[in-house]
Structures are given as C-alpha cells and as structure tokens.
C-alpha cells in the first residue's frame, strides 16, 4: 500500500510550528535535534495517518515542505 508522503527540508525549516498547528491529523512534531541554523525542524510522526491534504505545505513560510499523494 502506498502512503502519502510529507517531505520536510530540514535545513530550510525554522521551527515556526505553523505546520504542526494546522495539520488536521496532528501528526507533525518538532525534532529533538537542531539543524545547522539552530532551529528544531518539524518532522512527520505518523505517516500512515497522513491524508495528503497538504495544509502543512500550504502554510509553510519557508517553502520547506513538499507533499506526495499515493
């Protein structure tokens, strides 16, 4: 079974948490680790629950998220 994929470019992410907030499935969270700029990037917690709605990519102020369906 093919899953929907959320690809977060972790070096572009500034950890603003907007994607985490808007995700209707609440399956995004912040990484424990930081990226090279000192931010905690967002990450996918539970890809199986992703509906591919792309709200995260729509709201990302850094164009750091890409979404693939199916």
């Amino acid at each position, binding site marked *: 079974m093919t899953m929907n994929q959320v690809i977060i*470019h972790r*070096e*572009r992410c*500034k*950890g*603003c*948490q*907007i994607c985490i*907030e*808007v995700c209707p499935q609440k399956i995004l969270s912040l990484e424990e680790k930081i990226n090279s*700029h000192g*931010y905690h990037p967002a990450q996918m917690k539970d890809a199986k629950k992703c509906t*591919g709605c*792309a*709200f995260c*990519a*729509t*709201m*990302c*102020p*850094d*164009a*750091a*998220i*890409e*979404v*693939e*369906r*199916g």
Partner: protein
Amino acid sequence: MKVAARPKCLTQQQFSYCPGCTHGIGTRLVAEALDELGVIENTVGVLAVGCSVMLYKFIDCDFIQAPHGRAPAVATGVKRALPQQTVFAYQGDGDLAAIGTAEIVHAAARGEKITIFFVNNAIYGMTGGQMAPTTVEGQVTTTTPTGRDPALAGYPIQMAEMLATLEGSAYIARVALNNPKNVRQAKRAVQRAFEVQQAGLGFSLVELISTCPTNWGAKPVEALSLIEEQMLPTYPLGEFKLPEGMKAVVR
C-alpha cells in the same frame, strides 16, 4: 503524485524572513504564479525597501532595487519601456501606504499594466516595529507605546478600498495568509492579478494581510490568530474591483 512542491523559480537561498513570518507564504505564492503562468523568463521585478528588500535572492528573475515608496513609479518606467514583460513590485505598508502613497495612487489612476503585491502587517518590520499607516486603533508599537490613539495619530488607511475607486484599477483584492483556506484564496488572487496584467486590462493589486511575529511580540502560531482577531475587522477580505464578467473567488 506531487500535490505540493517547491516552486521552480525560487532559488536555493533560504528565506531571510523571521521564523513564521507570512512574507514567506506571500513570496511563495508569487513564485508559484510566475511558474504556473510560465513567464519567469520575461519578468522584471521591482524591489521595495523593507523586509522584502532581499526578494531578488529568493525569486530567480531580473530585479531593480527602487528607493523607498517609489516601486510603482520604477515599475511604470519599466513597463512603458517593455510592454510585453510581466512587471511586478512587492511592497510593505510603509513603502506603499506611507512614503509611497502618491506613487501607488497615480500608478493605479493611470491604469499602469503592472501588478503590485501589498504585504500589510500593520507595522514597520525591518526598522523595528514602528507605527504604520495601517496600524489599527489601540495597537501598541514603538512609536505608539500606549496604543494607537486616533486623536493623536489618526486612523488606519484601507488601501484596497481606496484604490478600487479609481477607474484605472482593473483588479483590487484583499486576502489573508492566516489559514489554509485563506491562503488558497490568496493564491487564486495572486494568479488573477498577473492574468489581468497579461490581458492588458489595467492596474492590479493584491493586499495580503500578514503577520509580524517579531514586532507584534507573538509566537508565529499565535500571530496567525491575531490576524483574525485584530486585523480582519479593520481589513475585510474580498475583491473590491473585478474586470467585467469575472466572478469573485475571495470571500
């Protein structure tokens, strides 16, 4: 199948906007539209002065750096010399509604076939949070430390409504960047504004209600709610001027 991808005409450079600043969404929407219309090779952008001054680092097209407030006049000069090119400017509230009021009004009045993106976050970001002409009543800024008092500092200006009264304005819209539904409408408005230019119908402008987490003193997510609570009552969304026959997409 990719349903959301990074626009091709964005460079590899990381945006220099503050974390969570919706300038980033606005920039992305402009890039998406330029990609989808296939015009990036025939586009000249005019840079304003403010947080978006580095836009040339993010969008890969020709750019000219204009003095503060004068982007619509510089864009006029470019479009008159190169009528076939897509010409746009991307301005903040100080640039467009304070120092640049004459330039934007007259570019619209003349029906210049340019497209202006007006990022309204009711404050001056780059210079550290001073009052803007769009600062709402009661809003605290570094130059209105006790909140904007109309008796002292006047009332906010609604640029979209004002510009829509001009005959030369072909498409004037106000959208917001605070949630996915509004951002999707904003995307359509941005695209329409460019299409109006391409069709030679006249002046087009999209006012994008945005956040300034840093100077509003709010975290990015909290700032999005402040748009709904504190900005939209003064700045209602809609398409205030539409070409004949075009149905509204912004509600």
